């Protein structure tokens, strides 16, 4: 290149503008509770909006009660969900029972909404196999190896397409850290290559344990990563349940109609620790950093909208919280009454047809267990 001549390509400009389509995350209700998109809000009846609020109160109460149970030593691994109620409840309610959910470990609330019980959620946390056996068969267990659920989603979606199932999609969740995994790209790309009906959620809650979002990638948004795979994507205010629901429903409709997959990035926040297993957020973030997010709370803004409409009161909410707490205490009793697990059962489930060595070990453990 000759000195001072015009370059054939302006990389600086490309870099500066590549996130332009994502400059305005979808929003219906802003952080002050002001309705910024009244046309969209008008599509929802008061009953629907109250139901959204109830689901968020349910999830917040589940979180608080679960943390209590954790402190009492009555649960195993549990990933706190406070702050993510709009993102989780707004999205899962856009899907139908026949849709196939592939959750990760922070997605127990969506699983319960999609067709399992709170007791099963607790059993999963406690490390009991019944926690993986759900009433709605269209669901996997929470994935621990982040990324694996994304490649499996491509497979489920392709299976749905090959079966010719109508009005059915696969939907999956991961977090901001999950978008750095190779499997994230492989999953979205496979679904795209096969034009399979899948909706990929990225709940960008700001943190992968202690690593902040900006350290994961220099990309300005996570949603824009989908562009490289030929997949349409959107960023949505993840603290606004109406916006999340609206976007999720549109994505589901698009995918179910045979148009291929969609990626949705919800901008949300993890109020608590990464998990109940000893993570201490004060090691890596300050109150100053977290305060704006607590102020953007999804319950506060929905409460304001509903109170302004005269369809919600604090008294009503307090009563609900008490009801939910009782429900969760009952669920814990149910989980604690589940039969003890046996090593012989684990051996029986290892193969469909047990190998000779496993058969021998089953007999050995059954003999021990019958003593």
């Amino acid at each position, binding site marked *: 290149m000759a000195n001072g001549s015009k370059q054939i390509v302006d990389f600086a400009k490309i870099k500066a503008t590549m996130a332009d389509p994502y400059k305005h995350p979808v929003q219906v209700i802003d952080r002050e509770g002001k309705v910024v998109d009244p046309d969209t809000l008008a599509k929802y009846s008061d009953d629907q909006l109250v139901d959204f609020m109830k689901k968020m109160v349910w999830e917040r109460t589940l979180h608080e009660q679960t943390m209590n149970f954790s402190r009492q030593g009555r649960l195993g691994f549990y990933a706190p969900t406070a702050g993510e109620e709009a993102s989780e409840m707004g999205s899962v309610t856009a899907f139908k029972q026949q849709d196939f959910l592939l959750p990760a470990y922070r997605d127990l609330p969506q699983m319960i909404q999609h067709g399992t019980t709170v007791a099963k959620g607790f059993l999963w946390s406690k490390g009991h196999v*019944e926690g993986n056996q759900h009433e709605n068969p269209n669901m*996997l267990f929470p994935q621990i190896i982040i990324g*694996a659920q994304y490649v499996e989603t491509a*497979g489920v979606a392709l299976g749905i397409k*090959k*079966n010719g199932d109508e009005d059915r999609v696969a939907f999956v969740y991961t977090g901001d850290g999950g978008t750095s995994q190779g499997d994230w790209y492989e999953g979205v790309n*496979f679904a795209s290559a096969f034009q399979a009906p899948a909706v990929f959620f990225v709940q960008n809650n700001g943190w992968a344990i202690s690593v902040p979002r900006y350290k994961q990638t220099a990309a300005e948004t996570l949603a824009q990563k989908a562009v490289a795979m030929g997949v349409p994507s959107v960023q949505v205010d993840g603290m606004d349940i109406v916006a999340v629901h609206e976007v999720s429903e549109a994505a589901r409709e698009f995918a179910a109609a045979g148009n291929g997959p969609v990626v949705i990035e919800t901008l949300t926040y993890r109020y608590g620790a990464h998990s109940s297993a000893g993570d201490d957020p004060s090691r890596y973030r300050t109150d100053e950093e977290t305060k704006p997010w607590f102020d953007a709370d999804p319950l506060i803004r929905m409460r304001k909208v509903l109170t302004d409409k005269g369809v919600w009161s604090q008294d009503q909410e307090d009563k609900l919280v008490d009801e939910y707490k009782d429900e969760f205490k009952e669920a814990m009793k149910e989980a604690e009454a589940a039969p003890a697990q046996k090593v012989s059962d684990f051996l029986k489930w*290892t*193969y469909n047809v047990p190998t*000779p060595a496993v058969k021998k070990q089953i007999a050995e453990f059954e003999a021990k267990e019958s003593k």
Partner: protein
Amino acid sequence: MAKMTYIKAITSGLDQVLKDDPKTLIFGEDVGKNGGVFRTTVDLQDKYGEDRVFDTPLAESGILGLAIGLSLTGWRPIPEIQFMGFTFEAMDGIVGQLARDHYRFGGQKNFPVTVRTPFGGGTHTAEMHADNLENYFVSTPGLRVVTPANPYDAKGLVISAVESDDPVLFMENLKLYRSMKDEVPDEKYTVPLDTAKVVREGTDLTIVAYSAEVNESLAAADALAKDNISAEVIDLRSLSPIDTDTVFASVDKTHKVVIVQEAQRMAGVGAVVASDIAEEKIMSLDAPIGRVAAPDSVYPFAQAENDWIPNADDIEAKAREIVNY
């Protein structure tokens, strides 16, 4: 009955399962129009259509994710990983997910996936194309690992693998693909997934081998026979589980054993067979257990591979040492 190469026998088995079960699917890199880089799936896309036999993007973890997801929606997937060295990219899919999913569901869901993959040295391939990586997979509960040593077993085993409701890793030996022919029935038959086979009877010594080393062991047995040493040769066929009944019965007859593998000596299949024999049959042995294996280096560059892979001479020498102990 026709004379068939090892690779044609696999193709014939795949043709059979595609015909028998409309839920079977073959997919992977280049398996469609190209019929696989070795032509193992040749003509199958033309015969069964692109819905049943199809190419995937180039990503092995994605291929395994596809297989698991397809199982969840009622399909019987037969993914191909183009070379066994590429299974490293699918390690979570095979070991972390597929092998554990039946257990995770408490036995309520099956994952009938057959992962086919070529392996084995001696054909002067590029790096990572010839490695014997079975040792990583035979220590995985929930996964079956089989590898045929001849065309007849190749067809019967691949059909059994696909029909099995357990996940199976089906290892195809590159060197055997076109180097041996057998009488192979045109009609359907199966070879059980978890049994070894005595491929040559003998009385003085047992040689336990699998895959291409079975042929090397048979050649060694021929050489030993010239000196009136009668070697029994066992083809394991299944590497997980190992058919110890067949091995033990032979050890009880010959009281001497040599275990052969193309893989590096460290840990692995030969070590498991040796420890099983030591645990159950040590009083039956008249000599130490002999082992023949590749040395514990990384798989060598092609120029040195013929010196690295254990051959009939190595097996014969070890057998003489054990017989004369």
